[in-house]
């Protein structure tokens, strides 16, 4: 029963991801005085892409054609271990938050290889930049996670959320830092403004888009979908770890429905926040990203220090 629920939650996760992307786009359009597409537009695009015949570059090897499946399944697996509407599901025990980072690394490894596979300058440029940014983002993310796990003394996401829930409302300085650090990392890792611009195809500014420039048809659909799931994953992580209230602790229908409603509201609010910041900020130069990410790292470090100094004295 719980396994069924876990599978259902994963499917729900994957199914909701394009909706979040659509909502984000909708908010952004309204903020920028543009006419917004329908909320369902990402679904339509995905559907259309899956019907098209893919065109593959001449020199592409099996890495290029298999990478979308690998990326997609790694991301889906990552989605399956993050509690979305309920905690204590059996899938949460398969892997902890460090393995989650590992799944992202797995997907990124193949995406970067796929970028290099075609042998154009674009792909190499995208791969190089992506690996650079991710290698700076990973320590920052780990620092934030460390702060969290030191408080909850577990790296299992489900247990950590239960810990935060049971503790009630505690104003922890370390959590404030960890929250901001994780937000900064999430923006960098999902390729949003100011680190990368998901809407541009100008070679000087793009990172993620440069790697997937040669993809088309179902391959492109999978990669797009995976990046939507990834965006939602970070959103759910932030929403459910720092503001876990509302998530279902039992498996009754009522609790689950309440959990679903809670997460939708939380994600919608986070998306509004993101779209405001994307509207206000401009993309920064590539070599300012290191400053941005070292700031995230500093936040994580300060969070950890304030945990040690201020919260758990002995």
């Amino acid at each position, binding site marked *: 029963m719980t396994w069924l629920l876990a599978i259902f939650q994963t499917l729900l996760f994957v199914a909701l991801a394009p909706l979040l992307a659509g909502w984000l786009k909708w908010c952004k359009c309204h903020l920028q005085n543009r006419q917004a597409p329908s909320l369902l537009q990402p679904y339509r695009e995905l559907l259309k892409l899956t019907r098209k015949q893919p065109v593959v570059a001449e020199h592409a090897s099996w890495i290029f054609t298999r990478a979308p499946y690998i990326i997609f399944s790694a991301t889906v697996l990552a989605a399956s271990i993050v509690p979305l509407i309920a905690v204590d599901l059996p899938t949460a025990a398969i892997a902890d938050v460090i393995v989650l980072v590992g799944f992202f690394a797995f997907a990124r490894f193949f995406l970067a290889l796929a970028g290099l596979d075609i042998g154009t300058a674009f792909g190499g440029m995208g791969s190089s930049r992506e690996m650079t940014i991710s290698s700076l983002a990973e320590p920052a993310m780990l620092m934030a996670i460390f702060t969290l796990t030191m408080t909850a003394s577990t790296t299992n996401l489900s247990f950590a959320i239960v810990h935060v829930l049971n*503790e*009630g409302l*505690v*104003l*922890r*300085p*370390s959590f*404030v*830092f960890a929250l901001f650090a994780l937000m900064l990392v999430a923006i960098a890792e999902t390729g949003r403004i100011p680190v990368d611009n998901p809407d541009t195809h100008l070679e000087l500014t793009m990172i993620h888009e440069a790697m997937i420039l040669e993809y088309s048809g179902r391959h492109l659909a999978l990669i797009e979908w995976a990046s939507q799931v990834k965006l939602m994953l970070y959103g759910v992580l932030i929403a459910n770890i720092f503001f876990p209230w509302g998530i279902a602790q039992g498996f009754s229908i009522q609790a689950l429905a309440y959990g679903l409603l809670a997460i939708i509201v939380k994600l919608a609010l986070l998306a509004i926040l993101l779209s405001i910041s994307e509207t206000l900020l401009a993309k920064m130069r590539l070599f300012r990203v290191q*400053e941005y990410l*070292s*700031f995230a790292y*500093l*936040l994580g*470090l*300060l969070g950890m*220090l*304030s945990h*040690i*100094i*201020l*919260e*758990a*004295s*002995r």
Partner: protein
Amino acid sequence: MNIEQQDFYTQAILSMAALIGLASFLMLGQGRLLRLIFVFALQGLLLTLTAALSAYSLDNHHLYISAGLTLVLKVMFIPWMLRRQVLAMHMNRDVEALENKTLVMLGGASLMVFSYYVLHPIVQSSSTIMVNALAVSLSVVLLGMLLMISHRQAVAHVVGFMSIENGLFFAAIVATNGMPMVVELGIAFDVLVAAVLFGIFFFHIRTSIDSLDVDRLNRLNEIDQ
């Protein structure tokens, strides 16, 4: 003794401590003078809030006065004055490249650990968790010094100096629930006088060496190179 067993007031003060520490770090890494001054004002604001919070929860009315003084002096007057001077001397576009930013930042973080290490015996002997925040205030003092060492512009030196004072003020709030009124007024007056004096010095340094880069003062040494 963990934070979740404390009342909300303590949690809030501790969070403020963390934020004040963060503000010090932000100042340390700031290359542009106007932003530096802005963050300094922000730190002052946090300090004001802490003092007000402390005054409210402890029912300690004279802390309201110090909060007000901080607000007027450190959030409004001094930042305004510094800002005016920077604008007047057209230094708002100067970017001061820190020589080794990462190293300075990591040095700052280790200073924080160091001050925790130094104050650990004192903190252990005390019964209140609030004393933990002493480590933060000491590190704010040390970070202020580091700011003065690592930056070249005289304006940054003033900000560093003032943030040292911020650290001491914060320590006074968390450790003793505020100093006696007389002392506090005296310090506030000192700060004011210091700020005015600095302003005059800026003017003189500026007219004599055409810059506020303190490294240029090296030229004034008597030894022939």
